[in-house]
């Protein structure tokens, strides 16, 4: 019992080290963070203006609703981007700095290491996404009085468990391919969102893509968040989207850890667990 408590303490101290390091990096790269935020802002605006553009071209649509629908898709795209990027940096950044050997030879359980990265990614991603959402909503003077933001946040939090699991799967790619592994994370992000109805209803997708959308956590996240913000649904009303997220999360985390473990063993066997160059 005492041994287990001591091990748990050791692991939690390690996890705090991961969180602290990431916070230090954000602090040290603060101006770059601001630059990337401006890029996210510009990117999101290009999507969200589409609704007004269609209206101006004579299309008939509820501009406010369509704008909010697009905005939710764009901020979730941005959130997933942050999440996958931070998780992929578990390997990629350490490899680039050359610290990877010191980190991977340290006595910290890999699941704790990855969960630490995931936790930071969620906290940082949620704050960044909330600010992005608020700025864009203000830009378009969207009326969101009836929105249930608490329910939307709960859906996002539950979905994040699955996203972390998928992020763990992509995090190992830079170990296998140091040159192209990181970009593969962006491919996974794109595929996940295109089948999940990022800017449209999944019902417009071909049948085989609709089938794929049922196993994508982003489908339920986008639908649940849209219901909560556009229709004011509470947690009970979006439960139909929450429970599949719980099921996918229960599968995704162990699967992500297993895949990362397989990748790490491959890297150790082939001498790829080392600094770049």
């Amino acid at each position, binding site marked *: 019992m005492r041994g287990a408590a001591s091990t748990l303490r050791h692991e939690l101290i390690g996890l705090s080290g991961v969180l602290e*390091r990431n916070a230090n990096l954000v602090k040290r790269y603060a101006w770059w963070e601001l630059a990337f935020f401006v890029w996210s802002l510009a990117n999101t605006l290009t999507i969200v203006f589409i609704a007004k553009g269609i209206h101006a071209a004579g299309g008939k649509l509820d501009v406010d609703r369509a704008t909010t629908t697009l905005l939710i898709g764009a901020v979730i795209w941005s959130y997933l981007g942050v999440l996958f990027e931070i998780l992929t940096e578990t390997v990629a950044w350490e490899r680039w700095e050359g610290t990877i050997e010191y980190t991977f*030879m*340290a006595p910290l359980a890999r699941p704790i290491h990855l969960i630490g990265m995931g936790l930071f990614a969620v906290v940082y991603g949620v704050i960044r996404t909330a600010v992005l959402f608020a700025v864009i909503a203000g830009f378009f003077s969207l009326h969101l009085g009836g929105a249930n933001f608490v329910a939307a946040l709960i859906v996002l939090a539950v979905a994040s468990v699955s996203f972390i699991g998928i992020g763990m799967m992509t995090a190992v790619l830079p170990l296998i391919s140091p040159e192209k592994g990181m970009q593969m994370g962006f491919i996974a992000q794109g595929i996940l969102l295109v089948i999940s109805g990022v800017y449209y209803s999944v019902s417009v997708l071909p049948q085989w893509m609709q089938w794929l959308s049922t196993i994508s956590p982003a489908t339920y996240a986008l639908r649940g968040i849209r219901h909560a913000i556009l229709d004011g649904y509470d947690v009970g009303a979006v439960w139909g989207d929450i429970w599949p997220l719980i099921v996918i999360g229960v599968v995704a985390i162990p699967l992500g850890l297993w895949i990362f473990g397989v990748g790490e063993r491959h890297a150790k066997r082939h001498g790829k667990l*080392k600094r770049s160059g």
Partner: protein
Amino acid sequence: MTAVEVHNLRKEFLRRDAERSGLRRRRRRVPALDDVTFTIERGECVAILGQNGSGKSTLVRLLSTLLLHDGGSARVFGHDVFTDQRAVQRLVNRVSVEASFFKKMSSEENLSYAARFYGMTGAETRERIPVILERVGFPTRRRHEAMEHLSRGMQQKVSLARALLTSPVLLLLDEPTTGLDPRSKLEVQDFIREVWASHDATILLCTHDLAEAEALADRVGILDRGRLLCLEPAEELKERFRSQTLEEAFFAATGREFEHEDEDAERGVFA
């Protein structure tokens, strides 16, 4: 007590040939370590000499749990390096040729990150980091500066501090003074001596600096093309090969000049 036991340790890497066989490049298995056997007693300092590509770094990385072996065995204080990795990781730390830090972060932030993985709390690191930095001769007032603003010698001192902060009982030094100016080199060597004397540490020093090996180590081994040719006190080594210097002994043992590295470099086993 035996600190390190290595028996017939073997590691190979797959390398693609420049020549193509059909559409694909042929692959060949290159031995990085070939049936290496040795032991290190607790408190001993052993130096392994070898040229670039001789297998020194592969040996260090195997003992650091960063590589999986292809044959043989390795134990650190009785723990199997390949099946009991967590136990080994708690006992080992290393200093390598590249200091390797998050460059924008300060030395204090980098050390704090590394120490947490070994179970040191924030309060403990805040207390110990200035003390350990002072011991390695690092001006503590500069501990908040980004690593990228420090000289190579300063960075290597922080690297030593990182290894010592976790109180390792086995310290793996992989060319720790390569690329340092003469003064920094001497300071690092003095510090290694001090740690060895005061820390009850066992040291495995991999280097191609003959003088460093002779000055620091109880025994000196020669690793050539993945094979450990000998491991004995420097004086016995010179006597055995009827040499005046370690360089001559190296030549007699390997049949090659110490500076001649082309052949090893061509083996392509720098992993």
